[in-house]
């Protein structure tokens, strides 16, 4: 009965009703898509590296001047030996990059046969030696670690076709589903390599990689090339700060003719810096969402408040005719629920259309439909919240108003 009454009343406020419905619809469409994008970004920022992040220190080392490969390898060996001997250092290795280290990496095309037309999987490479697993805290789930005699010196480009490699479980699953990958042969750019070990989890070096984010390959090599390298160290528990002070000093004591850009850096800080812009955009979008929801609450509240003021006399008459305060309260609550429901119905459609538009013009995946009921619940709740104040004021209208003229 109440509902028929409400619909009849709304017919007198067609324009205002349509405006609220439209507003709810737009809000739902925008908030659903924005939350989806925010969630994607957050998942990207939060994706685990698989390494012992809290204890890792990274030092970028660049030699001054040009040197022969043999000389560079000798220096690298000296440096690593010195670093591993520092009191607070658990282990150390050298690489041309590090997990989530930046925008680029050596991308490997991995096939099951030589001269395969399309690779079975793409992957990204790390330069690693027999100390890498222990430095990063990686867990070997099958096979064995590298032996010292398997490590060669060279650039990552030279190291792309080693006789033996260690891969992540993700990559092993892609190459050899449901079977053990250890001992199997794969082809990296058409050159054969044998998988000797599988590690549980290791994110690739390039932060922008999405489709093969955990397909990493450890290439047994030392980064000996003109661009310098990263020394990756794991500190013993509680020794991180001491290691960060001691390591650059120890390196400079060995040889002064080097540039260590910024000295020793905490891995956590490096990772945070890489994702800074992602976090910024996420925060910006979240703020837009909050303002949007506030605007919607404010708008609905304002308009309902106006309606209550306009209908004081009718409310008084209904009260005089025996309607309880609860009935008046429920009247406005039901009215709001009906309008918001209309908005949600239209908004669900708008949300899908907006998502299709974003998919077409920007690289966004399809909006999971589960966002719609969640958005709807939020809007229903906010609608009730917005209407509560004006509805309580309406319920407080005394019956005597009916007998007064305005």
């Amino acid at each position: 009965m109440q509902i028929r009454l409400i619909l009849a009343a709304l017919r007198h406020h067609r324009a205002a009703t349509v405006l609220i419905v439209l507003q709810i619809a737009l809000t739902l469409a925008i908030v659903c898509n924005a939350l989806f994008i925010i969630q994607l970004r957050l998942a990207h920022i939060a994706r685990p590296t698989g390494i012992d992040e809290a204890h890792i220190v990274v030092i970028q080392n660049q030699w001054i001047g040009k040197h022969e490969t043999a000389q560079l390898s000798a220096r690298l060996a000296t440096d690593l030996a010195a670093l591993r001997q520092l009191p607070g250092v658990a282990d150390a290795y050298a690489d041309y990059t590090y997990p989530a280290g930046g925008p680029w990496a050596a991308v490997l095309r991995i096939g099951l046969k030589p001269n395969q037309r399309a690779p079975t999987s793409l992957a990204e490479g790390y330069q690693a030696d027999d100390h890498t697993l222990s430095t990063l805290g990686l867990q070997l789930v099958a096979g064995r670690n590298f032996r010292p005699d398997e490590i060669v010196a060279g650039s990552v480009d030279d190291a792309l076709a080693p006789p033996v490699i260690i891969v992540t479980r993700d990559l092993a699953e892609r190459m050899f589903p449901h079977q053990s990958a250890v001992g199997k042969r794969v082809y990296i750019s058409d050159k054969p390599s044998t998988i000797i070990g599988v590690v549980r989890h290791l994110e690739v070096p390039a932060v922008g990689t999405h489709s093969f984010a955990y397909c990493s390959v450890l290439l047994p090599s030392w980064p000996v090339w003109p661009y310098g390298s990263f020394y990756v160290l794991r500190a013993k528990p509680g020794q991180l700060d001491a290691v960060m002070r001691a390591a650059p000093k120890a390196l400079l004591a060995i040889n002064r003719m080097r540039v260590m850009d910024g000295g020793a850096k905490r891995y956590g800080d490096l990772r945070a810096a890489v994702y800074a812009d992602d976090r910024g955009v996420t925060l910006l979008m979240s703020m837009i969402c909050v303002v949007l929801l506030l605007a919607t609450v404010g708008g609905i509240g304002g308009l309902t408040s106006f309606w209550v003021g306009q209908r004081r006399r009718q409310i008084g008459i209904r009260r005089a005719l025996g309607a309880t305060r609860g009935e008046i309260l429920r009247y406005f609550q039901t009215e709001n629920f009906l309008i918001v429901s209309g908005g949600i119905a239209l908004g669900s459609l708008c949300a899908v259309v907006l998502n299709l538009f974003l998919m077409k013009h920007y690289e966004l995946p399809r909006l999971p439909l589960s966002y719609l009921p969640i958005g709807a619940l939020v809007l229903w709740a906010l609608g009730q919240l917005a209407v509560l104040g004006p509805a309580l004021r309406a319920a407080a209208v005394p019956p005597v108003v009916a007998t007064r003229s305005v």
Partner: protein
Amino acid sequence: MFGYYFELAVRSLRRNPVLTILIVALIGAGVASSMVTFAALRAMSADPMPGKSAQLYEPQIDNWGPANPDVHGEPPLTLSYIDAEALLHAHAAPRQTALYQVAFSLVPADATRAPFAVKGYAVTTDFFAMFNVPMAYGAGWSALDDDKGTDALVISRRLNDRLFGGTDSVGREIRLDNHDYRVVGVAGDWNPQPRFYATGSIHVTTDHGDAPDVFLPFTHAVEQQIATAWGNYCRPDYKGMGWDALLHSECVWVAFWVDLPTPADAWHYASFLHNYAAAQQRMGRFSWPPNVRLRNVPQLLAYVHAVPEQVRVSFLLALGLQLVCLVNIIGLLLAKFMRRSVEIGVRRALGASRGAIGLQFLTEAAMVGAVGGLLGLLLTGIGVYGMGALFTPKIARLVHVDADLLGLTLLVSIVATVLAALYPTWRAAQVQPAWQLKSN
């Protein structure tokens, strides 16, 4: 007339302060969110070299062929040394430069000071005129330096301040890695953003975008075997080792720019480029028809999506927010205006025309819009200031508030509010005088 409407508006706005504040807040929040994201978008899509960017072109040549699976038929952004050298020798443009990024360790003459890293570009001397690089001291090197590959060096003002205390350092020497260079010029402040000319690293976002420290002759850098700091891209089957092999390979790593002042020049250069690729095909180096591009700076920036996608999506969302605020404002103004039906009825009965009523309410709306715009200005200022906390310096340093942005904020607020007021005003003007007088 307007004075009267103004007075009426002030009185009306005062009568219902909560509703008025709500409308003002909505206008302010809506306009500020779109202005903040617009400022970010504007900063990133700004012309890095106004007045010059349309005549700077980057030739691209497809030297990998259709077999290259990564680029969907587009030629690579940089050239192989073979092609760069050929274009330099052909000299088919009035001004041209090959360019690649170099990094050195600078060893100060004063042995007590620690060595530090410097970055810069190997270029030809045309670079300075093409890219409007001002010179604080000295000048770029001569064409002879270009040909001979001498150890001439142009340094940035920042490096000059650091090494020589800002004095005229022309003729002094600087040791980069193991080689001594003589300073021929000190560049003034020059750092166009985004750094479009560095096409080899145009996708690198971690770079803070500081001005380059040094420039040295391209020929010299190649002779000295100074490797590129942005890396080279080779076909997967590339097996060469060493510098000579790289120079004779199809690996791409050299950016190339030409200055083509008139459309006719650009047309000539495009056909030259096409003929060059066709000649390579005839010689058997390319087994595919010419696939070349000649993009100027705006076209190149659009092609490489210099504006991050996220920024554009944020701007779209902010526009959506503004739209919701507008719909909201229409509803609230409708409520506000219709509540005054009695007043309208009286004014109409006393002889006010529909037009007069309309003008009165539009004046009121414009006033609300202006106040909302002022709030929007404040929020925009806070928002742009807050960009520094949200984003890395590379992005944040570009975003700024200027008179244009402030003017636009006010204009958008007022125009949007007046537009939103059109329907409520029309409804207000439809009020029948007799009906209102009778019912009360």
